[in-house]
């Protein structure tokens, strides 16, 4: 009887573990995985460089580090199998006093990068919705 109970509990626990929802990585895959995201970030960095209004925020930025952390960040935000090793969003933007229009210009640079990279409109909208949700943590810090 007891054995049956323990066996039941064991099976229940096992199935509970298995039923933990697998992370939804469909957006990560739609962006082309790590390779696709790296390509988007490369174009994004170039587009930032072309945007006069925001370039001053990147004057002291270590571009290689920025690139690496951006790729990791987009990877985890879209459900990819990465570890984000960068700083938290709020402290990183602390003291930068990024305005609404500067945030929007940066988003526009990302949109151009997504267009150039040939990302479909549906995938683009999914990523933009994720990025938009970070806005409050970025502006006027």
């Amino acid at each position: 009887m007891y054995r049956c109970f323990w066996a039941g509990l064991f099976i229940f626990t096992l199935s509970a573990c298995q039923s933990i929802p697998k992370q939804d990585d469909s957006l990560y895959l739609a962006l082309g995985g790590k390779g696709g995201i790296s390509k988007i970030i490369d174009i994004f960095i170039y587009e930032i460089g072309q945007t006069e209004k925001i370039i001053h925020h990147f004057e002291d930025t270590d571009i290689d580090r920025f690139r690496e952390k951006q790729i990791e960040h987009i990877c985890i935000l879209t459900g990819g199998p990465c570890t984000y090793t960068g700083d938290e969003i709020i402290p990183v933007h602390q003291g930068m006093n990024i305005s609404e229009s500067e945030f929007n210009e940066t988003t526009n640079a990302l949109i151009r990068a997504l267009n150039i990279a040939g990302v479909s409109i549906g995938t683009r909208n999914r990523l933009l919705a994720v990025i938009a949700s970070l806005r409050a943590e970025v502006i006027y810090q």
Partner: protein
Amino acid sequence: MKFLKSWFSLFVLSQLIFIPSQVIAGGKLIGTSGGTQIEGSGGGGLVPWATLSGYGTRDEKSVTTFFSAVSVDDFRMTSYGASYTYHDRIEVSFAHQSFKSGDKKTDLSQDIIGLKVRLFGDLVYTPWPQVALGAQFKNANNTDDNQFLGAKNNQGVDYYFAATKAWLDGPFHRSFVLNTTLRYSKANQLGLRGFGGDKQSSYKSLLEASAGVFITRYWMLGVEYRQKPDLLRAAKEDDWKDIFVTFFPNKTAALSFAFVDLGRIDGKEKQSGAYLSLQLTY
């Protein structure tokens, strides 16, 4: 002739469409400016939205000009004007409308000054809608005819409350926008036929609504509905509706085409036809 002149000015304006988008101020996402509705306020084609014209954020200003033409079975209407948006908070607009029948018997016009204040919310970024309060101060020019038909005044003010929300990643992973506007008005046919009437001389609460979806990056498809007061016994008016497409080639220009159904106008039934509007933002 005058209509031709209007089309010519539209042609001239259309030459400005391909101004490089870098010259303009305003960092908001493309399409979020909305269009300019026929009374000069930022919105859809018929309905004012809670959005302020232009792409300016809270540290920017913008100027928008527009030209619209409506051609239905027995009537033509043209409307042009400009608006100024300050720091994503206040929109001031001016519009002139002229309305004529094909047989030249009807020749109406009016001037409209609009004021809109964004109360709270951001179209895209807040979970709640962008909400605005607006007023349109109207002055109709054809006084005798309108009084003969039963209109009480030649001047009137419309007040409206609008809530607009956009979803970047809506159904089918497309971007959607929904708008509801509550208008408080006694304007007959927008005010072209004066204000107040023999059926009712006081204000009426009217509901207006719009829905749109970006089917591609630059093309929005949508529908609009606008309730009308219908205060004159001799000149009944119906609610207005339209189906529109708007093309946003860049952040300077927006071009809208619509099929409009304006119902009864001055005793003529079933007035429907085409609407075209061009807007330029600086």
